[in-house]
């Protein structure tokens, strides 16, 4: 959001020479007062080999007494630096130790640019990768890699290229838009602010040049309007709704809507410290409306051009756990997103990312510095953007109810279920009209069970039977979906959940069309099926558990899956390797080894009985 004061997170592993490079940058840019510089020429710490009279750069970025006692940096220091363009950078000097990753994340969350240090002789270390990962996760789009201590490897181009190749491979997947590699020596002053003869082969930028180019931040004026209301100010004859424009822009005469009330109104006046016609992102404003509107702290002023606001009660999110106290299942937290406050729980952990290997691993709880993908369920729906769209309105924190501490920072990916009823377009023809035309009520039959339990065969029979009775029907078969709608998905638990989610939404559309949807899908995970059920009213959704004994399924083995699973040719197969969580309270339980006609009749009865319920 800021455009002239640009935050840069400076990070990398311990002892890669952060303080020397940063000290050199600050001195070269004339950002250090003369008396402080004098001290750095005369004061010497025990063990220092730098002759008195020369600048010990590391002293300029020295930390706290409490940190020096332990000989480590614990938290972020913020230092001003001035670029040749006159622009200001606030350098967020971050700790390199793994245990303080959360503090480094604090710095990255605010940063536009990352300056990542790598020691040329030691090369890429696990903490280097971890920090690059965190920067990507926190939405930093521009990264400068300073391959430092080039003097220790005789300014070897081959060594530099080796590190570039290795890092490029790893950085490629982290979402950076721009990457710049610079061979430097903080100690000697090579390529920090002046390009040096030591690296004639380097035709790229110096650190200062790279920072200067990256510091050009352009604001997105087309983004959706968001003004989270922080306070209500009573004026002589009206009310001012005070907040910061987080994205988009606002001006007098503009029509806006206020979430959650949905009320639309016109902006009649704007008070701001800096008077202008249009207030863009970053402005602190107080907005008045042409009529009385229900609005308070935690409400959000939005544009009217957005047909559906991203309001959700359940959403998918990335998260970093920042508390010493591990997360435990079923615990409820307070979620805060700007001025919004709502009780929340982590309803599922999809996976935890192993930061060193960049791999997804399963986890049942989260502990300090864990980075995870989770599902969050809120006590009531709130407006949350995706973090990708806006850090301020797509980022949130979780607070512990007992200790009151901040336990996690979250980055919204997308809603899992949109609570958009209020603002959903009101179409003239609805389910009622469509059902009237069809002459019957629609519903969803959700057939779940092991592979080869007979779901598709039963679905086929049920459809034939309903069709002959005059019902309009369609079958949504797992295998068919996999070849089209979900052809991009694999068989990890995350992908399976996503597949179930898509099928559930598809079934909902079919049902809204006045058609009986017959779903035949393994859907082995109870919480995925529960999430599907949540999309429907109770009378519309019938879970049918096709409870065929495993031996029968395995002997049928229509697709040869069981056989190949036993030979370890397929993994993650339900019934052979991956568990099938049987439904506890299905609307109907049938055995696929029973007489097909009886089974079909029992299911068809569900649809017929449905006709008599509202």
């Amino acid at each position, binding site marked *: 959001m800021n455009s002239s004061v640009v935050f840069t997170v400076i990070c990398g592993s311990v002892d890669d020479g952060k303080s020397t490079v940063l000290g050199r940058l600050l001195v070269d840019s004339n950002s250090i007062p003369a008396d402080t510089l004098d001290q750095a020429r005369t004061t010497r710490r025990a063990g220092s080999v730098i002759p008195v009279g020369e600048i010990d750069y590391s002293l300029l970025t020295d930390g706290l*007494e409490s940190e020096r006692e332990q000989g480590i940096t614990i938290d*972020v220091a913020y230092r001003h630096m001035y670029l040749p363009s006159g622009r200001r950078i606030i350098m967020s000097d971050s700790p390199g130790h793994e245990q303080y990753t959360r503090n480094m994340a604090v710095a990255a969350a605010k940063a536009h640019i990352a300056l990542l240090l790598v020691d040329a002789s030691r090369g890429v270390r696990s903490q280097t990768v971890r920090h690059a990962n965190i920067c990507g996760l926190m939405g930093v789009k521009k990264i400068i890699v300073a391959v430092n201590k080039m003097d220790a490897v005789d300014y070897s181009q081959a060594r530099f290229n080796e590190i570039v190749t290795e890092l490029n491979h790893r950085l490629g997947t982290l979402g950076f838009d721009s990457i710049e590699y610079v061979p430097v020596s903080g100690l000697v002053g090579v390529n920090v602010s002046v390009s040096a003869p030591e690296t004639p082969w380097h035709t790229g930028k110096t650190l200062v040049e790279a920072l200067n180019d990256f510091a050009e931040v352009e604001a997105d004026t087309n983004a959706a309007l968001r003004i989270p209301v*922080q306070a209500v*100010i009573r004026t002589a004859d009206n009310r001012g709704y005070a907040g*910061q424009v987080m994205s988009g822009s606002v001006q007098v005469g503009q029509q806006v809507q206020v979430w959650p009330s949905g009320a639309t109104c016109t902006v009649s006046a704007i008070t701001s410290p*800096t008077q202008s016609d249009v207030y863009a992102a970053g402005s602190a404003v107080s907005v008045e409306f042409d009529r009385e509107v229900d609005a308070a702290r935690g409400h959000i002023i939005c544009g009217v051009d957005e047909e559906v606001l991203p309001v959700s009660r359940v959403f998918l999110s990335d998260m970093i756990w920042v508390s010493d106290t591990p997360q435990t299942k079923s615990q409820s937290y307070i979620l805060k*997103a700007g*001025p919004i406050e709502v009780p929340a729980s982590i309803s599922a952990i999809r996976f935890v990312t192993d930061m060193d290997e960049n791999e997804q691993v399963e986890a049942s709880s989260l502990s300090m510095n864990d980075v995870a993908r989770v599902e969050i369920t809120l006590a009531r729906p709130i407006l949350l953007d995706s973090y990708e769209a806006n850090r301020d309105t797509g980022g949130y924190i979780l607070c512990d109810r007992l200790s009151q*501490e901040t336990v996690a920072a979250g980055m919204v990916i997308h809603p899992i279920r949109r609570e958009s009823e209020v603002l959903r377009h009101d179409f003239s023809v609805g389910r009622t009209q469509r059902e009237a035309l069809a002459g019957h009520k629609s519903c969803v039959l959700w057939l779940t069970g092991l592979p080869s339990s007979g779901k598709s065969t039963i679905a086929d029979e049920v459809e034939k039977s309903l069709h002959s009775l005059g019902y309009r029907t369609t079958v949504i078969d797992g295998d068919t979906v996999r070849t089209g709608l979900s052809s991009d998905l694999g068989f990890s638990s995350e992908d399976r959940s996503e597949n179930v989610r898509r099928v559930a939404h598809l079934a909902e559309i079919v049902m809204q069309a006045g058609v009986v949807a017959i779903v035949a899908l393994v859907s082995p995970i109870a919480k995925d099926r529960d999430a599907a059920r949540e999309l429907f009213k109770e009378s519309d959704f019938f879970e049918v558990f096709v409870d065929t004994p495993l031996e029968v399924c395995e002997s049928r083995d229509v697709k040869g899956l069981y056989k190949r699973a036993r030979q370890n040719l397929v993994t993650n197969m339900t019934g052979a390797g991956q568990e099938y969580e049987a439904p506890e309270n299905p609307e109907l339980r049938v055995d696929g080894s029973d007489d097909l006609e009886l089974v079909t009749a029992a299911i068809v009865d569900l649809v017929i009985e449905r006709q008599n319920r509202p």
Partner: protein
Amino acid sequence: MANSISRALDDVVLAELEAEAIWAMRECAAFSNPVLMYSIGKDSTVLLHLARKAFAPGPIPFPVLHINTGWKFQEMISFRDNAAKELNLDLRVHSNFSAMDEGVTPFTYGADEYTRIMKTVALREALDLGGFNLAIGGARRDEERSRAKERMFSLRSAGHTWDPRNQRPEFWSTVNNLLPEGASVRAFPISNWTELDVWKYIRRENLDVVPLYFAAERPTIEVNGSLLMVDDERLTEHYKQEPVLRQIRFRTLGCYPLTAAEESETTSVDDIITELETTNRSERAGRLIDGEGASSMEAKKLEGYF
């Protein structure tokens, strides 16, 4: 520093810093019992102005607190009373009266101990008495290295102590305003400003500051290489020196026996800005209280100093 920054870029930077500070002020008001610390100096002047802007045209929705050691410059006190009257502030003043009665002065105790008793202890008393759970201060990250490390909303545990090893993480524009029993928050809306920003903002907004920031002939004595202004007879009585008139000004304002003046010809805000852009000396060099031990600001902060 920053002598290449053009005026146009200054305006953009100031607008951004101002918007950020106003955002922070409005978050402060969401705490149940906030107070604005007013030390009468340039930073406090800016802070007060930002608080007014944040809630304009309404009043500042929290009281303003001054910790008086009894050794502030007389001009500061009259400036304070004037500001309170003109801006219609809910001004509270607190001093460590029992220590005053016991005769604690900058002369009877070392600067460190005096500061602890008259400023830190007095501040803790005042916050406890008022039940304030958020105190807004004008500290900036460019001032001093322990301040460079502090969050904008900085948690203090019961007893007002700061634990730099375990600061509450701070993300985006979301403030955790939940507090454990007895804990409080120090908020620093102008964390990201520099001394130069403060003066440029004072110029842009045309704000009045205590005249001591501008050079004038004032009675002074020299003590251990530092120029002290004779604000009343207590100083000359103690040092047994005759005052000498010198053209001086102050870069920061504190207790007058502990605040060194500089000889200067600087008589306007424009001059101060030019001086800062060319002299390049760190701001708190004139604060005698920072001198004792390289980490004394940090040590004070751990005990509850701002």
